[in-house]
């Protein structure tokens, strides 16, 4: 095997920067996906006029096209059209967050639907105000049940961050590529980047599975 330890060690500082970017993208993107997904789900469930249809079309559209194309469109077409210029990093967070929100919204919807009808009926029989029924009864039962599914989407998002190279975001895999370009050796940085993904993703999926056993699945 042709493995150069010196090259591996030299690659670490740049890789560390990439790791930080990947983690930041995943954390911020996930937060956006969790919040926006819930907003989408509530708009659909409450059948808010106009917005309901708009969200439906948006969700279907986003789910039917590749993330890479959405990133391109958002960065190179939409932003200039709107006269704004966000950094590649912020664009990446928004693109990942919105893309995954279309998936998490369906997860939330399944969680809400899984709350037994009797809960709604009891709340109604007790005259509990509608808003309170959502915040005090339905969501506290629906959200814990969907946490494992949300965790799975975070893991997917984490592994998809390299695609943001398309707009110049240097995540861990892209920093490995840079190292390779400087040293003409790609084995060490790529392997290290792969090890990093494995070291994070695998324990994370074990955690999700454990959570599934605790709260059940939707």
């Amino acid at each position, binding site marked *: 095997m042709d493995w150069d330890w010196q090259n591996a060690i030299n690659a670490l500082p740049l890789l560390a920067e990439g790791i930080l970017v990947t983690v930041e993208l995943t954390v911020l993107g996930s937060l956006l996906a969790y919040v926006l997904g819930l907003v989408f789900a509530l708009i659909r469930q409450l059948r808010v006029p106009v917005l309901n249809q708009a969200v439906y079309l948006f969700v279907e559209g986003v789910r039917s096209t590749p993330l890479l194309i959405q990133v391109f469109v958002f960065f190179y077409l939409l932003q200039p059209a709107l006269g704004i210029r966000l950094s590649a990093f912020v664009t990446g967070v928004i693109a990942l967050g919105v893309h995954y929100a279309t998936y998490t919204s369906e997860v939330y919807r399944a969680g809400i639907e899984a709350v*037994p009808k009797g809960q709604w009926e009891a709340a109604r029989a007790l005259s509990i105000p509608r808003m309170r029924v959502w915040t005090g009864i339905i969501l506290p039962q629906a959200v814990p049940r969907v946490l494992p599914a949300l965790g799975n989407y975070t893991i997917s998002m984490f592994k998809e961050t390299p695609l943001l190279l398309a707009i110049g975001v240097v995540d861990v895999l892209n920093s490995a590529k840079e190292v390779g370009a400087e040293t003409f050796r790609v084995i060490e940085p790529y392997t290290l980047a792969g090890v990093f993904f494995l070291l994070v993703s695998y324990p994370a999926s074990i955690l999700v599975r454990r959570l599934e056993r605790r709260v059940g699945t939707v």
Partner: protein
Amino acid sequence: MSEPYRTPLTSAMIQFDDVVKKFGDHVVLSDLSFTVKPGEFVTLIGPSGSGKTTILRLLMTLETVDGGTIQVGGEYLSHEERDGRLVTADEKHLRRMRKRIGMVFQQFNLFPNMKVLQNITEAPVRALGLSKAEAEQRARELLDMVGLSDKVDAHPMQLSGGQQQRVAIARALAMRPEILLLDEVTSALDPELVAGVLNVLKQIAETTDITFLCVTHEMQFAQDVSDRVMMFDQGRVIEDAAPEKLFTQPEQERTRAFLQAVIDRSA
């Protein structure tokens, strides 16, 4: 909030006039009429699918009528008079009427994310505007009454079915309803837990002036607590009598056959 003075339409607490309810093409209730007097305990018996539960759900406004009218305490439940015409009532009217009625469900339907105490205080605080302290004091009294003072801090899932149902009864009473609807409240319970729930209900029926409308298959209980029993079949009341009469000398052959079937099943 003062309500405009209305001449009561009727002295009955509950009055059904020619009520029709359909699910698709299936007619569940056809031109159903009956009344329940204030403070009366009326039990509905009859085969499954005869529309008994639908009556309770219509009263709780969990279903809407397809024809006829329902009055509660001298007011239309889901209609309003506007320009001399009877129209479907708005949500505000329904909300006001709903507060007069409580319901206990077959499946208890406690809120699993709340402890026992909060299950009972939630509605008085959120819907009646009681202070937390007032609501909690009342909840403790009610838990005492249903024999569960030691379960204040328990989660519903830690309780037996019978205990959950007694909490559900306390929860319904916390809203101080004029009418309490009991929808097969012991059907989901293990046999040895039934008596505890029925004793609590009997005690409430005897010590309050709440009007009860009860759907049950517990014939002994029905005979013990009811002022009146209505035998239901295919969406109609086919016999309506005092329990001692209906259970011992039913006039209708259908009633006799039904009672015999219940006895055979439990034997």
